[in-house]
């Protein structure tokens, strides 16, 4: 149970070693690099955002290329592939890739090019199809659509609205242009709302006929081509065919790049790492030949780092304890049992300076409370088994995912424990199956008692658990205050509260009302009750006197003291809040028996058994999912609000070491994995 002690590290090294040194640090992943805060005539910072932009672009290119590749050559991925984690990478592979880097980048560019070409060709096919569609009424015409006439004659090609016959057409044109000379109008095709026509006349009459036709609503064809429509259609068809072939070629070329998949993934990671490295160079203070690097390193790793670096490079390395005002990052270290709940703590807040790491104290309560809320032996075993198998099957899964699995593994064990205590196995499935299918009355008896028969007994137990949890929180506060040598605060803010709340609880239990309500079996002797009264009174008076010790004005002080005494109602609601343990525990059990009852409604026999199995599987899966979520949320709440409220506020910043795996997606260094 500890926040790992950090050392501030300053390294001064030669500029010619900059690249190797940074890469070495990146692979080690133990140093968080921060600004040196030094900038003068000799040392200055370099801005490398231009380089970083190139790397960022390469990363984006590689990502895009992988997307193209994956849509062309789908990878068979199971639903659980997300758990697989990153592949291991050796330093040698990393260095060898430098040679293939540019080739891979070219492959990525080529993939993008092919994708673009395919998109263009697809658009071209659509365009030619539309054009052919537009040509279809003109297919009967054996001259090009842009035919204007011969030396002496003029031709007008276009459409008129409405469906006209040959006679109607001739009559309409003759009426519209009575003065003009002879003409020949030929209908190429008619459709419901338009007539395609070809008008032929002497050149001198062209204007007259054009005007006449315009008057009738003449429109030129949408497509113009120098070949007769039928031929033009063939040309278009050939073009579309060619586009199709190109697409197919491109498609197969893309597929031929499938062997580059690993390299493309490595490219994405490689340049992500380089981009990160250049970001770190921005933090360095550099002179002409040397550079300064400052950061934080866990104290335990300091000696190893010094030995490794001085062995490889010419440099000066110096460690110092962080100063009071330094913004020291926080890294936690706990045993295997508590570590899984570190993420629960982290999503609240990491410990601030001077605060203890409450993970080790929280973890056992966490599993305990979670198990009580879910409280079914079969559910617990399922959860524990599934998480255990997944952890074994995917040993390289992301650390955060592994911690979560591990946490649910312990929660599952605790759930199974409480299930046995309360006699719940898929709710009451044994009773129901026995009664429905075999006509026997069997029950697995509860090891302790059945909550649904004695809810008050469980409620009392839940409130007791709550009091223990809260007092443990107060205890952590006491430890913290003593640890930081704030003895007065320890006495005033914690010991007095222990006295007041503890005294009040004993006093309450001695009243006959509470005894009846909770059907208590023990009796608190009047002497003890009297002692409790005195202790509680001392506590209350003490709180009134010291609660407002920040103020100098005595009246204000007492007023503030009275106000802080009012917080005792907070303890009441905090303790009552633990009744959710009972409610959620009952909810799981009752919903499980609803499922079982519904399943048994189809009666015995084969049909009944099939119906039962179906309803059983669907119902209990849903129940597990919903109640796991509920138990998770409410266990977190009890920890965050009731438990942390007593001593913990957090506010620390997480330790983000300069590490290769921080920004990579597919790979991580082997060494790093082991350290």
């Amino acid at each position, binding site marked *: 149970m500890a926040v790992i002690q950090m050392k501030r590290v300053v390294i001064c090294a030669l500029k010619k070693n900059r690249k190797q040194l940074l890469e070495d640090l990146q692979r080690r992943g133990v140093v968080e690099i921060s600004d040196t805060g030094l900038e003068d005539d000799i040392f200055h910072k370099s801005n490398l955002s231009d380089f970083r932009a190139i790397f960022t672009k390469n990363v984006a290119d590689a990502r895009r290329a992988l997307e193209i590749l994956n849509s062309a050559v789908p990878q068979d991925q199971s639903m659980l592939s997300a758990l697989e984690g990153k592949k291991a990478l050796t330093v040698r592979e990393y260095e060898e890739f430098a040679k293939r880097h540019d080739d891979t980048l070219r492959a990525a560019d080529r993939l993008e090019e092919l994708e673009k070409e395919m998109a263009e060709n697809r658009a071209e096919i659509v365009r030619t199809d539309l054009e052919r569609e537009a040509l279809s009424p003109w297919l009967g015409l054996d001259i090009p659509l842009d035919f204007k006439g011969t030396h002496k004659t003029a031709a007008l090609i276009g459409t008129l609205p409405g469906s006209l016959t040959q006679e109607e057409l001739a009559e309409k044109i003759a009426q519209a242009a009575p003065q003009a000379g002879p003409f020949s109008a030929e209908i190429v095709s008619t459709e419901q709302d338009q007539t395609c026509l070809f008008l032929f006349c002497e050149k001198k009459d062209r204007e007259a006929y054009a005007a006449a036709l315009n008057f009738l609503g003449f429109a030129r064809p949408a497509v113009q081509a120098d070949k007769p429509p039928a031929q033009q259609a063939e040309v278009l068809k050939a073009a579309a065919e060619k586009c199709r072939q190109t697409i197919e070629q491109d498609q197969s070329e893309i597929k031929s790049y499938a062997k580059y998949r690993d390299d493309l993934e490595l490219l994405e990671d490689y340049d992500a790492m380089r981009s990160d490295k250049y970001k770190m160079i921005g933090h360095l203070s550099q002179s002409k030949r040397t550079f300064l690097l400052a950061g934080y390193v866990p104290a335990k790793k300091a000696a190893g780092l010094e030995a490794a670096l001085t062995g490889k490079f010419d440099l000066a390395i110096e460690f110092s304890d962080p100063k009071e005002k330094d913004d020291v990052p926080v890294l936690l270290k706990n045993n295997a049992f508590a570590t899984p709940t570190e993420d*629960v703590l*982290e*999503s*609240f807040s990491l410990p601030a300076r001077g605060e203890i790491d409450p993970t080790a104290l929280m973890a056992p309560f966490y599993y305990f409370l979670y198990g009580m809320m879910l409280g079914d032996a079969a559910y617990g075993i399922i959860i524990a088994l599934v998480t255990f198998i997944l952890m074994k099957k995917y040993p390289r899964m992301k650390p955060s995912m592994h911690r979560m699995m591990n946490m649910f593994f312990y929660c599952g064990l605790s759930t199974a424990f409480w299930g046995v205590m309360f006699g719940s196995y898929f709710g009451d499935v044994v009773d129901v199956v026995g009664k429905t299918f075999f006509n026997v009355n069997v029950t697995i008896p509860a090891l302790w008692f059945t909550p*649904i028969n004695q*809810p*008050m007994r469980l*409620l009392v137990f839940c409130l007791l658990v709550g009091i223990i949890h809260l007092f443990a929180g107060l205890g952590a506060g006491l430890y913290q205050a003593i640890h930081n040598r704030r003895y007065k605060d320890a006495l005033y803010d914690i010991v007095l509260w222990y006295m007041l709340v503890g005294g009040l609880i004993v006093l309450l239990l001695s009243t006959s009302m509470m005894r009846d309500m909770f059907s208590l079996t023990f009796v608190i002797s009047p002497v003890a009750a009297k002692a409790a009264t005195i202790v509680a009174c001392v506590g209350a008076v003490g709180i009134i006197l010291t609660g407002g010790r920040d103020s100098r004005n005595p009246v204000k002080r007492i007023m503030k003291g009275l106000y802080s005494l009012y917080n005792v109602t907070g303890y009441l609601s905090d303790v*009552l*809040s633990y*009744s*959710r343990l*009972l*409610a*959620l525990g*009952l*909810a799981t059990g*009752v*919903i499980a028996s*609803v499922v079982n*009852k519904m399943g048994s409604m189809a009666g015995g026999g084969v049909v009944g058994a099939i119906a039962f199995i179906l309803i059983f599987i669907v119902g209990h899966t849903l129940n597990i999912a*919903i109640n796991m*979520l*509920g138990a998770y*949320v*409410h266990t*977190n*709440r009890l920890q*965050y*609000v009731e438990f942390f409220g007593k001593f913990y506020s957090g506010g620390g910043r997480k330790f983000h070491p300069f590490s290769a795996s921080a920004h990579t997606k597919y790979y991580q260094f082997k060494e790093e994995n082991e350290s």
Partner: protein
Amino acid sequence: MNFFNSLGLPLALLGAALAALLPGIGSAVAVGKTGRAAAGVVTEDPSMFGKVLVLQLLPGTQGIYGLLIAFIALSQTGILGGGASAMSGSQGLLYLAACLPMAIVGYHSAIHQGNAAVASIGLVSKRPDQFGKSMIFPAMVETYAILALLVSILSIFGVGGLNA
């Protein structure tokens, strides 16, 4: 009084129905509201699906608690599982009263928890690292549904032992 006594079972059934009805409506409204907010977040960032789904489901529990109370009431009165014997009017009223905390608190807490969950979805969409805290705000509202659930459960079991 004969007519009143014939109302025993109907009153108990009314209680069970209300316990399933009101929190169910409340949860449906709330989950619908949060679902719309969640869908909006997922259009921007599909990787948020898991987180916003959890937040969407939070106000759904009231409906389940309501179902639970309805079920306990139905089986305690014998309407479900057969053997429903006639009960006095006052016994029926007792069951009705026992169901009311869950029915009424369930309805309102579901809707307000939904509002809190919508706000939390907004929080997570901007700061995905704050998921742990965002879950707590809607869970605060649920406390009251849980308290009502507890009172309803204890009352229904208690009514069974009374000779009213």
